[in-house]
């Protein structure tokens, strides 16, 4: 795995917006599939040892993805992503909200707007992601969803995988 691939992470606190640029060593159509097909999304969306479990995903404008992050103890944190705009293989937009297991949106935490753009150059695909929060406190909820404690385990898992991949 190459470490030379770009990863930018810029936060503008005044507009509560996070800008992320990340390159992937794959062509555009593959990266697009990885972000828009539920069976691939579930393979990487949750930081291990958490698991992403998509109950349904209707990838069309106005459609939704209803999914949970499942902790090793089996605790489920549900979210709903509504697809607000789709321009195949170059851009799509999401309105992301926290929810309960019955698909009710959790109104205590404001939704965030995700804008995802993709472009390819020489076999490398760059994803440019803008995440706009009504309130940066939403970040706390993301972290609360269980990732914090799992990070050391994640690193160990990564190490193991890197060894097997070599």
């Amino acid at each position: 795995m190459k470490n030379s691939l770009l990863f930018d992470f810029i936060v503008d606190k005044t507009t509560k917006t996070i800008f992320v640029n990340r390159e992937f060593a794959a062509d555009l159509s593959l990266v697009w599939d990885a972000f828009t097909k539920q069976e691939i999304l579930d393979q990487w969306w949750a930081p291990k040892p958490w698991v992403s479990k998509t109950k349904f995903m209707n990838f069309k404008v106005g459609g939704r993805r209803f999914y949970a992050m499942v902790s090793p103890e089996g605790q489920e944190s549900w979210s709903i992503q509504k697809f607000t705009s789709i321009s195949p293989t170059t851009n799509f937009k999401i309105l992301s909200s926290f929810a309960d297991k019955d698909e009710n949106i959790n109104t205590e935490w404001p939704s965030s707007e995700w804008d995802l753009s993709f472009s390819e150059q020489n076999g490398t695909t760059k994803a440019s992601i803008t995440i706009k929060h009504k309130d940066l406190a939403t970040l706390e909820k993301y972290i609360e969803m269980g990732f914090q404690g799992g990070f050391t385990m994640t690193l160990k898992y990564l190490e193991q995988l890197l060894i097997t991949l070599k």
Partner: protein
Amino acid sequence: MKIRRDVFQAIADPTRRAILLLIAAQSMTPNAVAEEFHTSRQAVSKHIQILTECELVKQEQKGREIYYHINANKMKEIDKWIEQFKTILETQFNQLDRVLLTLKKNMK
């Protein structure tokens, strides 16, 4: 009212952000802060109270005056949350790298 969380609630309000900017530049008395705003003194005082409860602002008695100054350590908490979010994304993308690699192998 339950004093819910922390720094995020404090900075969610534009007036409170303005107050923080003001006293970040220099310690100020309650009157001096209030004079910078068009809203009522009580409203400003309420904002300062919230900032104090969130520990973003500290009070200091100097002679007969109270001065407000910023608690820089607490401000760093915001950066900490952002940093953790960055770590999560980084982890997700590292996982995606591996998934892409597998997908490419399977296509051959």
